[in-house]
Structure formats: structure tokens, C-alpha cells
């Protein structure tokens, strides 16, 4: 009796070792992602287990689980989050050459600890009724501090990580003192106290509450798709998108990215999973639903294709965002960016 029990237990354990699975901690929550995971399972027989949550909280869980962590993949938005995991030494290098060959250097960890899976740009939306082509032409993040924009700009709060990354990239490029001066003037140009999400900023511009909104590119795609309701669709049609810094550094680009964890129990499956995410077919179907920009050279969504597609990207490495994030927050605190 006892022996059979032990045998059964052993058997169960071997089974669980053989079970083909990959465990993913993710802070992306797209239904379309989940459908892709199902495809991965159908294709490879590897089951995808998911825990989703905020990046920082997942990192904390990883840290405390340590060697016992069941997680294989950390999949998140914002390069800062990837940098944090990297800094804790919790990644191992991605080994799939097939995957790595598709990603340019500035969109990967220094030792291939992580890779970008999709891109988004932080752009400027404007209301053509209130802003002339002349005014908007050759606009840069830096020039948003100009006096002529006084009371005309909306942007969300400094608690938002997209803003933190943007400011971090400016600190990287222009230095902390210059950026602080810039931020001070920018705050004076706000049309209202920072509030609401990126979409709320675009809506404010569409409704004439403000003339310029700084927001992530993909939001306009969601709004234009009509999935978010009639009201947002008609608002989205009223605004135009412009990529800043086209004559200088290029538009700020941030990533969704993934890495394989140091104590991953299923390293091989994890590499396959990343390969899968970077394959042309998956890239295309992913960005068509998330309205991000792909890493592989595949067509983008029709909604995003209705704007400029061949824009200049800031080639500065996204690696700096995480490192400079605390400095960016403190800077925004100092200038009273709520």
C-alpha cells in the first residue's frame, strides 16, 4: 500500500517534470495576446501558464520566490521594468539566434537578457482647428517648453511610467539641469492639472479643451478601430498625430519586451516562446490588435498606417530608461508636475 503510494507520487512528479509548459509572468493584458498563447500551445504542445499583474509587483514576487520561482518568462511593457529585473540579476541570456537576429541592438538587453517584442512611440496629438501646420511643423519635445504653448498642453500625471521614461530619455540626451528647466516651463504650459489616462488627453484635444496632447501612439489606433465606442471614434477623427524630433534625435520609442528568468525551469520552452512571439506571423497579428509597431518587418494595423509610418525613431538605447527613472521622478516632483 505504502509502496504504491510512493510510486504514484513519483509517477506524478515525473509527469509534472515531463509536462510541456512555459510559465509567464506578464503585465500585458490583451485578450489578443491570450489567443496567441493558445496558438502557441496548439503549435508546439507546450501549455502557457499565466500570472498577470503590475510589473513592479511581479518583480517583487520573482525576487522573493528566488530559486523556487516557477516563472520562465517575464513579459512586460516599458523598458524600465525589464531593466529592474536585469539589475536584480534575475534574467539569463536568450539563446535563440533566430529570435535575436530580428532585433536591433538598442532594443535588447546588454547581454541579451531581454528583447523587445513590440514598440510604441510617445507622440503629439493636435487639433488642426486650433494649431496651424506652421506651428506644428518640426516640433520637438524640447520645444514644448516654448512660451507660445502656454495653457495649451495636456499630459497625464508624473506617476505614469510612460512620462517617467520620456523624461528619463531627455535627461539622458540633454542632461539633468537642462531637463529640469525644460520640465518647469512645460508645467507652466499645462492647460490643466494632469489627470486621466492617455486617451483622456487625446479626447481633451479633440474637444478643444487643449491644443496639444502628449500620449502613446497606439491609443489612437484603439480609438479609431471603433472598439472603444462611437464617441471615441469621432473624437479620434478630429485629431492629427505628429512624430516629434524628426529633424533631430527622432521620436521617443518605448517597448513591450520579454526575457527568460535565471531560475526558469523550462528554458528551452521559454526560448521557443520568444521565437514564437518574434515570428512574422505572430508579430503581424499581435500589432494588428494592439496597434503597436512590430519588431519584425511586417505590415502594421490599418488604423496606424493612416498616419506617418516612416518616422525617425530615437535610436538611444531603451536601457537607460530604467536607470534614470528615479532621477526623472524626483525631477518632476521638484518642478511640481503632479
Amino acid at each position, binding site marked *: 500500500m505504502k509502496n504504491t503510494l510512493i510510486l504514484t507520487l513519483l509517477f506524478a512528479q515525473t509527469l509534472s517534470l515531463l509536462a510541456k509548459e512555459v510559465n509567464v509572468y506578464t503585465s500585458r493584458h490583451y485578450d489578443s495576446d491570450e489567443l496567441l498563447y493558445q496558438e502557441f500551445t496548439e503549435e508546439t504542445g507546450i501549455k502557457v501558464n499565466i500570472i498577470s*499583474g503590475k510589473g513592479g509587483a511581479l518583480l*517583487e514576487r520573482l525576487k522573493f520566490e528566488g530559486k523556487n520561482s516557477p516563472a520562465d518568462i517575464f513579459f512586460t511593457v516599458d523598458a524600465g521594468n525589464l531593466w529592474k529585473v536585469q539589475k536584480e540579476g534575475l534574467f539569463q541570456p536568450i539563446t535563440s539566434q533566430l529570435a535575436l537576429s530580428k532585433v536591433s541592438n538598442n532594443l535588447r538587453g546588454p547581454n541579451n537578457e531581454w528583447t523587445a517584442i513590440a514598440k510604441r512611440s510617445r507622440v503629439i496629438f493636435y487639433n488642426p482647428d486650433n494649431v496651424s501646420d506652421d506651428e506644428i511643423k518640426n516640433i520637438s519635445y524640447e520645444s514644448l517648453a516654448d512660451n507660445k504653448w502656454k495653457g495649451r498642453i495636456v499630459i497625464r500625471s508624473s506617476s505614469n511610467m510612460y512620462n517617467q521614461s520620456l523624461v528619463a530619455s531627455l535627461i539622458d540626451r540633454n542632461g539633468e539641469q537642462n531637463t529640469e528647466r525644460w520640465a518647469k516651463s512645460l508645467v507652466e504650459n499645462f492647460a490643466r492639472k494632469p489627470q486621466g489616462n492617455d486617451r483622456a488627453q487625446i*479626447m481633451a484635444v479633440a474637444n*478643444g479643451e487643449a491644443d496639444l496632447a502628449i500620449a502613446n501612439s497606439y491609443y489612437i489606433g484603439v480609438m479609431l478601430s471603433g472598439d*472603444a*465606442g462611437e464617441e471615441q471614434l469621432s473624437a479620434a477623427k478630429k485629431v492629427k498625430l505628429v512624430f516629434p524630433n524628426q529633424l533631430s534625435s527622432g521620436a521617443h520609442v518605448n517597448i513591450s519586451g520579454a526575457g527568460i528568468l535565471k531560475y526558469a525551469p523550462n528554458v528551452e520552452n521559454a526560448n521557443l516562446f520568444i521565437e514564437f512571439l518574434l515570428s512574422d506571423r505572430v508579430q503581424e497579428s499581435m500589432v494588428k490588435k494592439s496597434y503597436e509597431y512590430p519588431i519584425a518587418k511586417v505590415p502594421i494595423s490599418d488604423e496606424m498606417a493612416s498616419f506617418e509610418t516612416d518616422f525617425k525613431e530615437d535610436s538611444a538605447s531603451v536601457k537607460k530608461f530604467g536607470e534614470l527613472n528615479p532621477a526623472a521622478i524626483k525631477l518632476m516632483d521638484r518642478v511640481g508636475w503632479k
Partner: protein
Amino acid sequence: MVSWKMLPFIVAVVFITPILIVLTSLFGEYSDNWSHLIEFVLLDYISSSILLVLGVSLGVLVIGVLSAYLVTNYSFYGKNTFEWALLLPLAIPPYILAYTFTGLFDANGDANILIRYLFNLNNDFVFFPNVRNITGAIIVFSFTLYPYVYLVTRSAFLNQSNSIKESGRLLGLGQISIFSKISLPLARPAFIAGLMLVIMETLSDFGAVDHFAVQTFTTGIFRTWYGLYDLNTAMQLSSLLLMIIFLFYFLERFSREGISYTNDNSTFKTASVTGLKGLKSLLASTFCFIPIFIGFILPIIELSLWAFETNVDIFNNKFLVGSFNTITLGLFTGLICALLAIVINFSIRFTKNKFLERLNSLMSIGYAIPGLILAVGITRFLVFSDQNLFTNINFVITGSLVGLFLAYIIKSYALANSSIESGYERISNSIDNSAQLLGSSGGKLLGRIHFPLMRTSFLTAVLLVTSEVVKELPATLILRPFNFDTLAVITYTYAAEERMYQAAMPSLAIVIIGIIPIIFLTKMIRSSRIKNS
């Protein structure tokens, strides 16, 4: 005999450990981020937190106490409905009301669009004031949290013997003086207990204040953790918050030490109900209707509008499993919390052990810890247990449901405790004395006498906890096992991507599941009324 006396201590210690782990950060190192916080932001965090707590306290006391007084002492149009419907906003988590508020009252929100349409105004016209500020936050918390005050105060008013009020009347007091000089002071322990819950929930909330971009202590805690990557300082900030709450808690306890509010049963007389007519009746009805409208009807309308505007297939597997998980977790946690509260409170009453009483208060402040910070304490505790206590068992409790239950119990024990405590306050000490004289003590006294007397309080405890667990989000997100969703998690995953339309249906489901416990509460309220009148 030894075992049941020790049990409360052991249990209490297990539940307090994660809280203590958070508090121990106070004895750790203080990083340079503190000087930045103190110089630039801490004052803002503190002042807006204080403003928020004061505003919400005033709000919930006015709504909760007055409506409770009206429905227990007067009869007016719709009173029987209001008596239970006033509880309905309990089903709406503050963050969901906040989402619907901006959906309604933003410049291009549905309410403003409606006004423009009705009065044929142009698109620039904005009728409603901006809600994304501290006033908006105060309104949202007041109208979602006042039921905690209403619930306990109402039963306190019901249990006030009419003979006291009659004495007041004989001594020449008018209706207002009877309320302010007799009923209100006698109900103090009840509404203060309710108010403490409200204050703790307000201070630990993140979702609503974040949505309104109001910078409070909690938003500061998260900025420090996520933005400055400084978990230790974030935990120190949380500890500071806990210490402040703890101080309030003890001040309140201290201020009524030695005062007994129990009735001497032999002279108990049920309240007499005064009939209101005409304008007075209308005013009373309006006063009771407003909180139900703002805290329940309005968000339901807006969520339904959103839900119908999206043609998403919602009754899929994910949704159903999520609902099942939510209900099971809620009920199970409710039962554990209520049992725990009754055993511990019984021990306190029976053994008069001051230490256990302190432990019990400490357990209650778990309610005030922001869910995510609590999750950190729990994870540390579980990992420690895995590495040191359970090394021989091939089972890792980190990342299992154990952590989730622990979080829920710590987070909602205060609700069970306040309900059981106020139940005990109503059992006269003379009952214990008689029982003991007749040879009933210990477990017998609890099982045969206290438990039957406290059935209502027990059920209230279970239901309050259940409705809280159904709404809980931050701790669930980080502690849940693989592929384990609750409705709050599903709502969040949509809301995080700013897709309120898709978030509407799971939100509605949270509300609907939250209503189930309230229906039971309602039934009890009805029966308590019948018994009392």
C-alpha cells in the same frame, strides 16, 4: 482546556506576522529618498490625506447616522425600502464609482452630453464641475462607504431602549435634543467603529485616488516603490500610515474605557416610531434616496450603458470561472473571519486578557494596509516558512492559494471583528454571570448562549467580509496562483488598458455578486425590525 485558550494567541500571531514584517522596515535603514520626499512631496501627501479623511468622515457620518436615525425612529414615504436599499452602495467598490464618475462628469462625459442634448447647448458647454480632484474623491468615498456607518449605527439605534428617550422627553427635551443628547452619544461606539473602517479603507485605497490624480499617502507609497524602485522606503511610508491609524484606534478605545453601553435587559423597551407627513415625509425620503442614487443607481446605469455599447461575448469560460472563484473565495474567507472573530472576542471577554485584546486590535488594522504592501509582507512570510518550516514537505506554499487567503483574512478581519464586537457589546454581562452560575462556561457558554444570541452578528460578519473579498484587487493580483482569475482581476486587466467598455461587464458582475450578501443582510434587517417593533 489549554488548547482552546492558546488557540486565539496562535492564530493571532500567524495573522499579525505579515503586518509586523511590514512594520519592521521602520527599524531598517533610511535611504536618501527620504530627504527628497520630505522636501518636495510628503507634506502634500499628508495634507491631502488628512483633507480626504476629514471630508469622508463628515460625509459618511452625515449620511450614515442621519439615515439610520430616520429609518429607525420615523415612518415616511418609502421607508421600508430605504431601510435595506441604503446598503446597496456597499456592492460598488470606490474605484468603480470613480471610473463611472469620470465617464459621466468629464467635459465630454455622458451626463454633460445629456445636459447639452436636453437644453440644446453647444459642445463647449460643461455643466458639471470637474470631479478629478479631492472633492470628487471625497464624494466617491462618502457614497460608497457610508453603509459601514449606517449598518452598525442602525442596529445601535434599534437597540436603544425607548425608556431612556422617554425619560428625556419627560425632562422636556425636543426631538432634536433627544437625537443629539441621548441617541447620538449612546450610539457612539457603533458609529465610531463604522467610521474607523471607513477611514482605514479610504487611507488604503489606491484605485480611486489614482484615477482622480489625487496625491495621497497611498499614491506616494506606490510612486516610491514603482518609480524610485525603493520598496524599503515604501514600506516605511506604509508603516507610518499604520502607526497613525493605530494611534487613532487606541485613542478611541481609551476614550471609552470602562464605559459600558450595554442595556439592562429588564427595562428594555423598543423604539416608538413617529409618523412623518407631507413635506417632512418628502424631505426624509429625499435624504435617504440621494445616497442610494449616487452610490448605486447612477453607476449601475453608466456601467450598463457601457456594457451594452460593446458587443463582447462575455459569458465565456474565463468569465464564469472567474465568477466561481470570486464567490468561493469570498464565502470561505467570510466564514473563517467570522469564526476567528467570535473565538477571539469570546476569549477576550471570558479571560479579560489585555494582551489578547491588543493583538486583536493589531489584527484589525490589517484593513488599513494597502493590499500590495500587505502582499509583500505575506510573500516574505511564506517564503520564510517554505525555507525554514516546511522543508520536509514537498509543497511550496508561496504562490498557492494559502497566501491569497491569508491576505484576504488580514485585509478583512476588521469587518468581521467590528460586527462581532458590536454584537458582544449588546450581550449584557449579566447573561454571562447567570450562565456561569448555572455551570455554563468556556466552550459551552460560547456554543449554547453567545453563538445563538449572536447569529445575526455572525452572519453580518460573514457577509461583510464576502462583499469585501469580492472587490479586493491589488493583493489578489500579486498573490494568486497561475491561471487564476477573479472578477476584480478581469476588470482590472481591461481597465489597465483603459478599456472601460470591456471592463463594464465584469464590473457589473462584481456588483451583482456583491449584492447577494446584501440581500441576506437586508433580510436580517427586516427580521430585526419585525422583532423590534
